[in-house]
């Protein structure tokens, strides 16, 4: 049996947890889910191949506490003896499995894109986004995985040694998928034996952020600037174009390091991962650090003075030239063609 930690919010299972379940099923064993609270979310898990959903219930779990969540996983490992534990490669998924790994001194492979035979076959579709249909029983003492390095710019084929591999699944590496003829899962609640140390680190306060403008992570269009924009003031023309398109303004790491824009605007491996319909990269050379943040865009338009810049190898469209002329010209053309 494979044990999957499932995250949920407002009674719904997170999409990234459904993706993790899809990869967990590729191990070819029955899948049991663990939810911390959220009994009402468990019903939909049947369609995702979950036979049993264990729900940890304790009022002390109302606010997130990573060690307490790890205690829940740990108890189910003791009780159910799974052959692997899987979670989504989210902040919490990675954090909780790191706690479980530390608690039990087990190896943990974060952000896997493939597991089992699919991960070990040379030049197989290790990154193509679908787990192989053939089931892959877990070998006694090791499991092959493919996992993300450099925020997805590179993959690593690794072998997890030991009797109980702990794995998280990289976001959007596989698609969530339902199974045919699935029944609602058996739901079993349990009260974990929490100790005070498990609750030493717990969310004590949530501070709401003031909502300003279009969110970078959810924008349909992102107008983004790099070193080529030249200065903080240089972003004025990008903001003007963004306002017309109801777009968010983003930037590269060079720009935040120089202090031209706040870090919250950074698109990249160490910033925000975006997935707009159109990403407009102005004066951005296209370092792998940046591509890791914008490759989720449906289309990328590069505006760059250098026709040989690496960004052109990642873009769908390009305009070559001086962005200080091109960006205002696009703004003017939009205004002109929209005028009544």
């Amino acid at each position, binding site marked *: 049996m494979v044990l999957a930690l499932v995250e949920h919010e407002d009674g719904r299972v997170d999409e990234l947890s459904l993706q993790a379940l899809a990869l967990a099923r590729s191990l070819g064993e029955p899948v049991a889910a663990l939810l911390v609270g959220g009994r009402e979310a468990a019903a939909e898990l049947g369609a995702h191949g979950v036979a049993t959903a264990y729900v940890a219930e304790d009022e002390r779990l109302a606010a*997130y506490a990573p*060690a307490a969540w790890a205690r829940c996983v740990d108890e189910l490992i003791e009780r159910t003896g799974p052959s692997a534990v899987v979670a989504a490669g989210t*902040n919490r998924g*990675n954090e909780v499995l*790191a*706690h479980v790994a*530390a608690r039990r001194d087990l*190896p*943990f492979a*974060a*952000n896997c894109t493939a597991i089992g035979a699919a991960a070990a076959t040379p030049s197989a579709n290790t990154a193509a986004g679908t787990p192989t249909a053939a089931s892959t029983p877990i070998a006694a003492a090791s499991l092959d995985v493919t996992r993300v*390095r*450099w925020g*997805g*710019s*590179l*993959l*690593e*084929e*690794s072998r997890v*040694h030991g009797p109980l591999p702990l794995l*998280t699944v990289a976001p959007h590496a596989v698609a969530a998928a339902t199974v045919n003829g699935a029944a609602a899962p058996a739901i079993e609640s349990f009260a974990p034996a929490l100790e005070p140390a498990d609750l*030493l*680190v717990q*969310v*004590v306060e*949530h*501070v*709401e*952020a003031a909502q300003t403008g279009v969110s970078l992570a959810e924008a349909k269009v992102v107008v983004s600037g790099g070193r080529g924009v030249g200065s903080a003031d240089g972003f004025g023309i990008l903001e003007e174009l963004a306002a017309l*398109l109801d777009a968010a303004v983003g930037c590269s*790491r060079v720009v*935040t390091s120089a*202090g031209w824009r706040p*870090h919250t605007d*950074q698109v990249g491996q*160490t*910033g925000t991962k975006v997935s707009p*319909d*159109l990403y407009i990269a102005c004066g951005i050379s296209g*370092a*792998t*650090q940046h591509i890791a943040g914008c490759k989720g865009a*449906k289309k990328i338009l*590069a505006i760059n003075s250098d026709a040989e*810049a*690496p960004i052109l*190898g990642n873009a769908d*469209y*390009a*305009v*070559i*030239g001086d962005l200080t*002329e091109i960006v*205002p*010209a*696009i703004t*003017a*053309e*939009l205004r002109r063609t929209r005028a009544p």
Partner: protein
Amino acid sequence: VRILVCVKRVPLTGGKMVLTEDEQALETRHLGFTISPHEECGVEEAVRLVEQHGGDVTVLTLGPPEAEEQIRDALATGADRGILLETDGEERDPQATAAAIVAEAADYDLVVFGNESADAGNFQVGVRVAYALGRPVVTGLKGLSVDDGRLRCEQEVTGGRDVYLVPLPAVVSVLEGINLPRYPSVPAKLRARQKPVEKRAPARPEPRLERRRLVVPPGQGKRAEILGRGPDAAPAVVDVMRELGVA
């Protein structure tokens, strides 16, 4: 507060991932190296805490002898001393990395990590060190302050920030953006050369997360359709925007 900051030397990868012939490493002959970005902010955060509350900052790295360069960089931005745990250049798995750090980390009030290294991205070394030391650990921080002997830790989450209050001694991991690291001045760089760096070479245990091969994912080497040159391309750009339904 006595603070230990753990950093990793990583290559500045530029525009393309190129592997060595044996597919075991990145081809770094033409690349520079740096401190992994989250950890660079960890150094800055530690230096600011000490500027505010007193104490000292030790910076530690597990890496090849050349990683002394990254320790000197951290010393030039305000750290007081360094510890270089020398390897033969072979990357160690997270358990081995944590074990080497644990042996050095017992005497500090606060141990600071980056949330994940830029290259391996294992998301776990700090948590393992915390458990081995029996200390609380909070990860992914975008805000950190010491308040009445306790740490106030802030994480960015959907819609705002989650706050944790944690007693010292503790372990934390931070994210880039928690601060804007300072640039070292020339005199600071000179002073950094005189600061003490201890060197030790802990043995490498057998990896339990064993890296076997690196693979460049498909998708590199697209060729963009050139819509035009200069401002005359604007109508073609707007046509594309209309096609995509975003204009």
